[in-house]
């Protein structure tokens, strides 16, 4: 696990180099969430809406929208696919994203239309970590972990 300015950056995930992380699952689906620096920029999240199971999304469309007192935005999916699961706990408690962005606060699981090319537009490993560190530096983000 890399850490920069207090922000956790798991090296095994894939990133759109902005807000989103992706984790390939054994069944060919991809789990999506937002990064530690992104949740820090967002502030304490108060509202989460996630697309219903069965919704088909074109690449770039939002699988979820999130709102805090100072920020609102979408969670774009970097590939086309169908929502096959969503984290119902976030609908009740969006603040969970501020607490555990890479684990309990996953947002949705998506079955890509074209599994072979689903990760074409995201990065992983040292290249991704370097770009995310530049992102953190550009926006002058200092991550702080919420305990609850």
């Amino acid at each position, binding site marked *: 696990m890399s850490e920069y300015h207090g922000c956790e950056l798991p090296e095994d995930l894939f990133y759109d180099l902005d807000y989103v992380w992706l984790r390939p699952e054994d069944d060919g689906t991809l789990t999506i969430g937002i990064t530690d620096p992104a949740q820090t920029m967002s502030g304490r999240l108060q509202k989460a809406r996630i697309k219903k199971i069965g919704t088909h999304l074109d690449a770039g*469309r*939002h699988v979820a*929208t999130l*709102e805090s007192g100072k920020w*609102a935005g*979408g969670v*774009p999916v970097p590939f086309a696919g169908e929502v096959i699961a969503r984290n119902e706990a976030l609908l009740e408690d969006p603040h969970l994203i501020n607490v555990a962005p890479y684990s309990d606060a996953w947002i949705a699981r998506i079955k890509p239309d074209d599994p072979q090319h689903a990760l074409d537009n995201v990065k992983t490993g040292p290249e991704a970590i370097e770009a995310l560190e530049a992102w953190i530096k*550009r*926006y002058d983000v200092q991550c702080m972990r919420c305990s609850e």
Partner: protein
Amino acid sequence: MADIDQIMQHDHEHLDQLLEQSAHAVSAGAWREAAHLLEVFRHGLVDGHMMVEESTLFPAFERKEGDDDHPLTTLLRKGHQDLRIFFEEMAEAIQDQDAESFDDLLSTVQTILKQHDAKEETELYPYLAAALPDRGEAAGKRILACEAETPS
């Protein structure tokens, strides 16, 4: 002609009114009218306001600051990119006559616009006149011409 910061701020208010009109049409179940009004709003914002900002105002601000990767303009450009996607999703919600999805999207978009506009009005617009060679006259004329095309 008014100063560029005043023209841009007024355009925010003008565009907010257009979006409200589309939302009212959705509430009334007037789907064709809602689709037309949303397109008028989208055209005014994306093809007018955002275009002027991205082609003229942001580069002028970046030149003034000596930083073509300035955090403020980077964040504002990202906001524009997100909004373009949201507008497509709102248009689809209207096409599907899905008022619940439209209202959810509207709530998010209005929050984004409120924060985005406030950032521009406090951190960008006040510095534009000094950053532009003509003090923003040409950009102001383009915005006023777009407003004339899309009366609210």
